[in-house]
């Protein structure tokens, strides 16, 4: 879709005007912008004002044992967690992916809940499964794993079959409720 690509270009040039230049790449017609973690709220709010009104998804990739630099971009190499913000426009149907890289020991990024209510549960899920802290999130609890769980299971150093956490869960019988 050439029209969608050109409108993404206009969007990117508008972003450059307001926030400065960011690294971008294109693969199979999908444009990615790599944004430093501290500038994420600013960039997301500019993009939202420019028409990307729908937050499609927030997810994360743990690059712990990834062989190459992510997305074949040397600038992204060496980081452990790459957050993925998928934005879309309900009016023009253009899409843009915003990537943010954060690292141990305290992976953290500003929450997008002030911009989109949709971010609430999506960020809770990323916190649950990857242990990325979203600063300013109103209710950062685990979403899919039990509250007693201690690990973040989608990290690459967490084994597929678990570490036996389930065996240590307290068993509550009918009498001691």
């Amino acid at each position, binding site marked *: *879709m050439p029209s969608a690509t050109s409108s993404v270009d206009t969007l990117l040039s508008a972003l450059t005007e307001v926030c400065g230049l960011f690294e971008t790449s294109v*693969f*199979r017609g*999908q444009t*990615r912008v790599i944004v430093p973690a501290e500038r994420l709220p600013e960039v997301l709010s500019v993009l939202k004002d420019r028409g990307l*009104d*729908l*937050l*499609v*998804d927030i*997810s994360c*990739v*743990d690059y712990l044992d*990834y*062989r*190459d630099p*992510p*997305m*074949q971009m040397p600038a992204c190499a060496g980081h452990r967690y790459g957050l*993925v913000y*998928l934005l879309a426009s*309900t009016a023009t*149907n253009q*899409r843009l*992916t915003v990537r943010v890289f954060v690292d141990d020991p305290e992976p953290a990024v500003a929450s997008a809940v002030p911009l*989109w*209510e*949709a971010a*609430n*549960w*999506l960020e809770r*899920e990323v916190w649950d*499964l990857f242990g990325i802290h979203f600063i300013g999130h*109103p*209710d950062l609890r*685990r*979403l*899919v*794993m*039990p*509250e*007693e769980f201690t690990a973040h*299971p*989608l990290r690459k150093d967490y084994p*597929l079959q678990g570490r036996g956490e389930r065996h240590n869960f307290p068993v*509550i019988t009918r009498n001691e*409720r």
Partner: protein
Amino acid sequence: MSIAPPTFESTPRSAAAARSEDYLWTLNFGPQHPATHTTLRLVLKLEGERVVDAMPEMGYLHSGFEKIGEHLTFNQYVTVTDRMNYISPMANNVAWHHAVETLLGIELTPRCKVIRTIIAELARISDHLLSNGAVGLDTGAFTFFLYAFYQREVIYDIFETLCGARFTNSYTRVGGLSQDMTPLVVEKIRTFVKTFPKTLDDMEKLLTRNRIFVDRTKGVGVLTKEEAINRGASGPVARASGVTRDLRKDEPCLAYADYDFQVCCASAGDCYARYLVRMQEMRESLKIVAQAVESIPAGPVNVGIGQRTALPTKQQVYSTIEGTISHFELSMSNRGFEVPCEEIYAAIEAPNGELGFYIAGDGNETAYRARCRPPSVLHFAMFPHLIRGHTLSDVVAVLGSLNIIAAELDR
């Protein structure tokens, strides 16, 4: 997930509301309840019969599908996608392999595109039948539910003839399908296209102007257009609120661009509007199926040997050297696909909304990361917003109209 009393999300309340807090009553709805249909939990704060606040909780069916996705190959993982939204597994199969093929850069054969379009639309009909049927069932219309379920059986029969499995189909493969469509399937789909509108008419007669049903659903759980966008709604839920977003039109994949159909929208944003949108979408899906089934192109259903992704036919394996090599290499664990070290997101318009996969490839034929973007999570998250101020009996109507499928919710 724990037995301990959960804390409520902090919502701004007036001082008077805070004083009346003493009279509030907490009700645990689920995780096992006939009207949740699946395993999910709601903790409701009630003032008499009125719901003051609700706290949805999920995770009871969490099985680590995304973690498994990092250990199964692109073809094996399709069996897991069956179990995500098990109301319409075919749509999940199509969504998963659409994403994989976008990553690998595979262009499907015309025949495969049309067959996938047909099964995705049949899956949509089957999904809408169940979700509307369940709304009917929960608001007291049992006959309506049975009418819907009978037609689901017919669609199951079509899928059984198509691929041998009724429920967990695992029908798609990278670059093609597990089996080609036979004339018998085409015949069954033609019969379905002829007979289904009659049932749809009967269903509409039963419920669309039924006083009890309209009273139970109209004005209940209203979602405005702004809120729908802000809360990330998609699919029928968003379209019932006036968001004209349908990926079949907006980002036409497969063969959708070739067919004449309309995007169904409503503006009210209540449970009744969601019911109407789903009813109308079934008619539009049937239109697509009717057009597609009469124009299935001839030719192979899998991509050629040159692409080395779909298994060649036995004929090719035994009679050509390319076929033998391709079959051998695809069966070896360290050969097979050429996967770029890249990342893509690809989505289709699943019955429930935008079902997308974010796949990171690292050169192996297993995804490095297989994120599923399930529509149900965002819909379930907006539940407290929709139910506040309504009565306890409206909980089931709102829950049914959002069509929360816990297996897709928790993955």
